[in-house]
C-alpha cells in the first residue's frame, strides 16, 4: 500500500499498546469519550423496536451487493455518466492518487478542501498531493486538529478522540496561524469556543476554494447517487460551493437501490454518534448545480478481501465505529497502536486483509482482541469480528516457540492417558513451581499469581473414589 507513510515501520501491536496504556492522560481521554458514546448509542438503538430487523436487512443488502458487485458497479458507472459525471477506476492507492492529482492539476488550482474520508486517508492522498505541489486542507474539526497537530488519526469517526479540550486549545493557538487565519488571542478550551475558532479559520477557505475532494458513505447503483453523512456542515461546504468535486470511494460502498438507504440512514447515525439522525446528509447524482463531478472507484486490496469466504464480511463495514467505542482493548490501547487509519476491532480484521500480514505489526493485529464479542453485538451490519479474527489467526505465521508449545499441548490432549500423566507430573512438582514464571509465561506472573496446582486431578479423583461414591 502506498499510503499510511506515517504508520510504516511501527512495532507490533503489543509494544505500541504497552506504551499507550501507561499514558494516563490518553487513558483518561479515551475512557471518557468511549463511555460517553456507549451510553448514547445504546439509547438511540434501544429506541427502535425493529433494530434487529434493520440490522438483518443491512447485513443482507451488503452481502447481496458484494455477491453481485460487478453488475452493480457497472450500473453505477452508467448512471453517474448519464447524469453528467465522470467515472475513474483505481486498482490501487498509487493509481487513485495519480488520477486525483491529474484532475486537480487540470483545473489549474493548487489547493483543495477535503471532507473527512477514510478512503483518502487509506491511500495517503494528502501526502501524494503535496508531492505534486497541491495543498489539501482538512475541514472536519477532528481532521483539522490532527492536521494542525502533525498527528495521526486514532478513531474512525472522531480522529482526534485522543485529544482533550485543553490539548486542542494549545494546538489551535500554536498552529492555526501556519495554515491560515490564526486562533483568537483569548481562545478558551470551551468546546463552543474551539468550534467557533474552527469556523472562523475555515470560513474564507470554503468561500474561495474551487476544488473539493470527498469520500462517500454510500453509492446507489440504480440511480448513480452519492451519499455523505456529516455533522458540522463542512461536508456541505465542500460538496456545494467548489466548481469541481472529486469523490474517492471504495468499491464496497455500493448499495443496489435508492430504497436501501431507508435501512442505512437508520443504522449508521444511531450506531456512530448515537443520534437519531446526524445533522446533515447530502445526496447528489452526477453533475449538479453546474458543478463538475468525478467519481474515483477504489479497489486497493478490497477484491482480495472479497476473495476470502470468511474475511469478506469485513467489506460490509459502514465505518460507524461502534465497535471501537465498545472495545475494551481499544479503550486502553488507543487508535495509534493499530498502526492504520482503521483502528479498533474492525481495523484488526480489515488492515491485515487489505495490507497482508508480512509486517510484524499487521501480523499482530488479529491478536489485538480478547474475543469478548462486544464488537459483534454492537455492529449494525452484524460483522462477526471474533470469527474473522480467529480465521486470520489461523493464517498468520506463528513464532517457533509458540508452534512447539502448541504442538506439545496438542500431543498431550490427543490421548487421555498422556493428559493424566502430565497432570500427575504437575501434581508432584506443584511445590516447585516458582511464583514468577520464566520466559513468555512471565507475562502472566508479572501482575497475577498463578493458581495452586492441586495434588490430584479431577480424573484421578474420579478413578480413586469411583466418582465420589467411595
Amino acid at each position, binding site marked *: 500500500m502506498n499510503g499510511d507513510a506515517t504508520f510504516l515501520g511501527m512495532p507490533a501491536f503489543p509494544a505500541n499498546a504497552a506504551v499507550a496504556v501507561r499514558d494516563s492522560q490518553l487513558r483518561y481521554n479515551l475512557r471518557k469519550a468511549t463511555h460517553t458514546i456507549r451510553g448514547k448509542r445504546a439509547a438511540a438503538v434501544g429506541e427502535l423496536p425493529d433494530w434487529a430487523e434493520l440490522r438483518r436487512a443491512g447485513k443482507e443488502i451488503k452481502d447481496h451487493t458484494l455477491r453481485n458487485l460487478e453488475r452493480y458497479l457497472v450500473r453505477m458507472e452508467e448512471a453517474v455518466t448519464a447524469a453528467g459525471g465522470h467515472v475513474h477506476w483505481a486498482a490501487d492507492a498509487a493509481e487513485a492518487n495519480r488520477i486525483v492529482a491529474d484532475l486537480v492539476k487540470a483545473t489549474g488550482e493548487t489547493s483543495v478542501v477535503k471532507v473527512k474520508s477514510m478512503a483518502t486517508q487509506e491511500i495517503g492522498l494528502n501526502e501524494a498531493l503535496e508531492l505534486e505541489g497541491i495543498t489539501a486542507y482538512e475541514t472536519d474539526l477532528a481532521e483539522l486538529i490532527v492536521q494542525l497537530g502533525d498527528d495521526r488519526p486514532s478513531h474512525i469517526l472522531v480522529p482526534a478522540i485522543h485529544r482533550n479540550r485543553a490539548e486542542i486549545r494549545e494546538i489551535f493557538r500554536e498552529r492555526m496561524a501556519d495554515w491560515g487565519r490564526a486562533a483568537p488571542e483569548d481562545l478558551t478550551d470551551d468546546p463552543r469556543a474551539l468550534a467557533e475558532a474552527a469556523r472562523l479559520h475555515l470560513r474564507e477557505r470554503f468561500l474561495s476554494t474551487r476544488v473539493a475532494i470527498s469520500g462517500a458513505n454510500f453509492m446507489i447503483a440504480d440511480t448513480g447517487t452519492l451519499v455523505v453523512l456529516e455533522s458540522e456542515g463542512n461536508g456541505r461546504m465542500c460538496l456545494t*460551493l467548489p466548481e469541481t468535486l472529486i469523490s474517492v470511494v471504495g468499491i464496497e460502498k455500493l448499495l443496489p437501490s435508492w*430504497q436501501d438507504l431507508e435501512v442505512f440512514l437508520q443504522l449508521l447515525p444511531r450506531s456512530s454518534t448515537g443520534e437519531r*439522525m446526524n445533522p446533515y446528509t*447530502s*445526496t447528489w447524482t452526477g453533475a449538479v448545480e453546474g458543478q463538475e463531478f468525478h467519481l474515483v472507484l477504489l479497489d486497493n486490496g478490497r477484491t*482480495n478481501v*472479497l476473495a476470502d469466504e470468511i474475511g*469478506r464480511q469485513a467489506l460490509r463495514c459502514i465505518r460507524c465505529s461502534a465497535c471501537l467505542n465498545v472495545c475494551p482493548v481499544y479503550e486502553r490501547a488507543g487508535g495509534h497502536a493499530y498502526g492504520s487509519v482503521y483502528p479498533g476491532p474492525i481495523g484488526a480484521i480489515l488492515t491485515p486483509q487489505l495490507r497482508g500480514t508480512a509486517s510484524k505489526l499487521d501480523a499482530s493485529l488479529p491478536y489485538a482482541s480478547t474475543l469478548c464479542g462486544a464488537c459483534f453485538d454492537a455492529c449494525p451490519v452484524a460483522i462477526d469480528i471474533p470469527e474473522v479474527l480467529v480465521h486470520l489467526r489461523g493464517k498468520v505465521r506463528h513464532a517457533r516457540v509458540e508452534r512447539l508449545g502448541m504442538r506439545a499441548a496438542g500431543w498431550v490432549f490427543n490421548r487421555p492417558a498422556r493428559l493424566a500423566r502430565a497432570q500427575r507430573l504437575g501434581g508432584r512438582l506443584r511445590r516447585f513451581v516458582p511464583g514468577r514464571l520464566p520466559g513468555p509465561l512471565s507475562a502472566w506472573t508479572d501482575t497475577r499469581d498463578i493458581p495452586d496446582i492441586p495434588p490430584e486431578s479431577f480424573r484421578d479423583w474420579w478413578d480413586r473414589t469411583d466418582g465420589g461414591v467411595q
Partner: protein
Amino acid sequence: MTAAGSRELILSRIRSAVAGAGEVEITRAYRTSPDPVRATGLVELLAERVADYRAVVHVVDEGEAVATIAAALARRGATRLVVPEGLPPEWVPGEPVTDDPPLSAAELDGVDGVVTGCAVAIAETGTIVLDAGPGQGRRALTLVPDYHLCVVRAGQIVAGVPEAVGRLDPSRPLTWISGPSATSDIELNRVEGVHGPRALEVVVIR
C-alpha cells in the same frame, strides 16, 4: 483517465473472488409504514424531536404562520434575508434578497439569514429534507447564512425514514437537516454550531 485495463482488472478480480458464492436474499421485516399510535401525533412528534437537537420550534395554525415568522425574525434581529424562488411572498416581511441573478458565496455570507420551505419532514428523527425545489432554492442558500428558518406544513410530515425515502426523488440534490450544525469531535460531546447555520428555527403549520 483510468489506466487502460484497471476497470477490467478490478471487474475480473471481483468475478473470480465471488465465483461459486451463493446468492443472498434480502429480508425487509423492519417497519416501513407509520406506527398507528404515532400517526395521529406526527406534528407533535416532529416538534419534540426537532427541539431535541436544540433547534427552536413553533407549532402554529395556518393563520398564525405569518405573524410567527415575523416575530421570530424580529427576535433574531434578522432584516437582510434571502428567499428562494417560489416561497410564499407573505412569509417574509420587507424587501428580501433574491437569488436572481445567483448570489456569490461572499454575498450569501453577508446576509442575516434564509427562510425556506421543505420537501419532506420526518417526525421520528426530527429531520427536514430540502430538495432544491420551489421555496427551497439551491443548496448554498441554506448553508452559508448563519440562520435558517424553515416552514413545514403538516402534509409534508411522514412518520419514519422509509416513507421519506419513498417520497424523495434521488435525481435532485437533497439536503437532510437534523438540527443546527453540530460536532461531536471534542470529547464526543455534542456542541451545536460549526460551519453550517448555527441557528435553526422551524415553524410547523398544523
